[in-house]
């Protein structure tokens, strides 16, 4: 009986300790955010790396998702003569849920892995120690620019993804489902409210923070060797993806529960 309790307790304690370590890491990062020095060049580089270079993958994800969504809504709607709602549901689905969540997951796969691998490699090759001996705080030089860049660029990526996804639905709507182009676009624009888009952008910012936080945390805590860096990279992507889905549910509850 004691053995069984210990077997349950050990992973629970380990999980709680991990949550605590991440929370301390996040609090420390936020503390550094408002104190100089700020590394503007590093921030600019990360805006390009995280934001600009993620645009193709987010755009491709969005356009195919928008198209598939239009087909599914049309097929489902036709069961009760509601085919006409395709533009509105594609728009609200992309803006509120699929744009931020799928964009977040794609960026998690692309960026959290890359951050964790880069910082993890820096750790095992003593580059982090070298930063310290050169009077440079790794938290300020490595973590803050990535956190800030991801948090600020993700809403832009989500916004772009929303627009591209809606365009994907529109393309399918006019080419495969015999919608009129002008009325499809008019229905989309007239139906969307500010908070439909705004809530997705807020989600994007939160997801961006999660992606960079997980990448930096796991990279900084990478174990030695190629295996250690590989494990850190995997952990960063898994943790970021799960946290994005959990945060998405919580944010949806907060924003839209009656």
């Amino acid at each position, binding site marked *: 009986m004691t053995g069984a309790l210990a077997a349950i307790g050990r992973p629970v304690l380990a999980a709680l300790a991990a949550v605590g370590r991440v929370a301390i890491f996040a609090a420390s990062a936020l503390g550094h955010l408002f104190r100089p020095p700020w590394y503007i060049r590093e921030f600019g580089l990360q805006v390009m790396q995280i934001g600009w270079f993620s645009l193709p993958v987010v755009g491709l994800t969005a356009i195919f998702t928008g198209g598939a969504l239009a087909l599914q809504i049309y097929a489902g709607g036709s069961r009760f003569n509601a085919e006409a709602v395709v533009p509105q549901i594609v728009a609200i689905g992309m803006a509120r849920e699929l744009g931020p969540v799928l964009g977040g997951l794609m960026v998690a796969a692309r960026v959290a892995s890359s951050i964790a691998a880069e910082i993890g490699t820096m750790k095992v090759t003593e*580059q982090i*120690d070298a930063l*310290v001996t050169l*009077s440079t705080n790794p938290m300020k030089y490595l973590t803050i620019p990535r956190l800030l860049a991801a948090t600020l660029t993700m809403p832009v990526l989500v916004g772009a993804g929303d627009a591209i996804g809606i365009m994907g639905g529109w393309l399918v709507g006019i080419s495969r489902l015999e919608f009129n182009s002008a009325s499809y676009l008019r229905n989309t624009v007239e139906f969307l409210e500010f908070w439909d888009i705004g809530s997705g952008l807020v989600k994007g910012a939160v997801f961006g923070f999660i992606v960079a936080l997980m990448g930096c945390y796991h990279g900084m805590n990478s174990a030695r060797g190629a295996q250690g860096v590989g494990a850190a990279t995997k952990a960063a992507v898994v943790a970021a993806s799960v946290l994005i889905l959990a945060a998405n549910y919580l944010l949806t509850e907060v924003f839209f529960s009656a």
Partner: protein
Amino acid sequence: MIELKGVTKSFGQNHVLRGVDLTIPSGKSVVVIGGSGTGKSVLLKCILGLVRHDGGQITLDGQDVTRAERDPFLARFGMLFQGGALFDSLRVWENVAFRLMRGALARPKAEAREIAIEKLRRVGLKPDVAELFPAELSGGMQKRVGLARAIAAEPEIIFFDEPTTGLDPIMAGVINDLIREIVVEMGATAMTITHDLTSVRAIADRVAMLHAGRIQWTGPVAEMDATPDPYVQQFIHGRAIGPIEAVR
């Protein structure tokens, strides 16, 4: 002067340092020798504060290093890491000038670049290397760039962590000579950790042997060969039989 008194450090059940007493006099070059895994790198990292020691005291010019203000303290040091530890994403000159472009020692970019190229020249590298990335350099060139970075801000104290590991004997000799020349030229205090005896003879004023977490023997390099200490004798002659266990 750097003084270590009874310094201890453990990682879990692994007691790496068990009470290290060592003095590194100002302007002298002290080389710490010892087998692999004896805690030489940990000792060096404890002095720099990269690893927090568990017990004992480390002082720099009489001041406890754990209480020193970090930036001015670290500004007194330069360090050559075992693998170079060059920043992959930065060009060679940006690596060398890293400290000169940030913090209290920051200066205009053009001036920092000029100093970096001068330091690269000092370690025997041509100016056109400055625009390359570390991945484009050989192991020996990376060590030289690491050395140039260590001396770029003309620190009072320079640490060398296994400076010749992974280099061929000729390149190792070049690095040893460079280290000796630079330390003498700058009048710097130097601490080197190595198990390469050619390096020891080329670089050291004094030698300290670390074994089983303590300083086993220390003395001038000229006395190293003649000391009757069985640990030192086994180590410098590379004997499998002796007080140091060959299988650790």
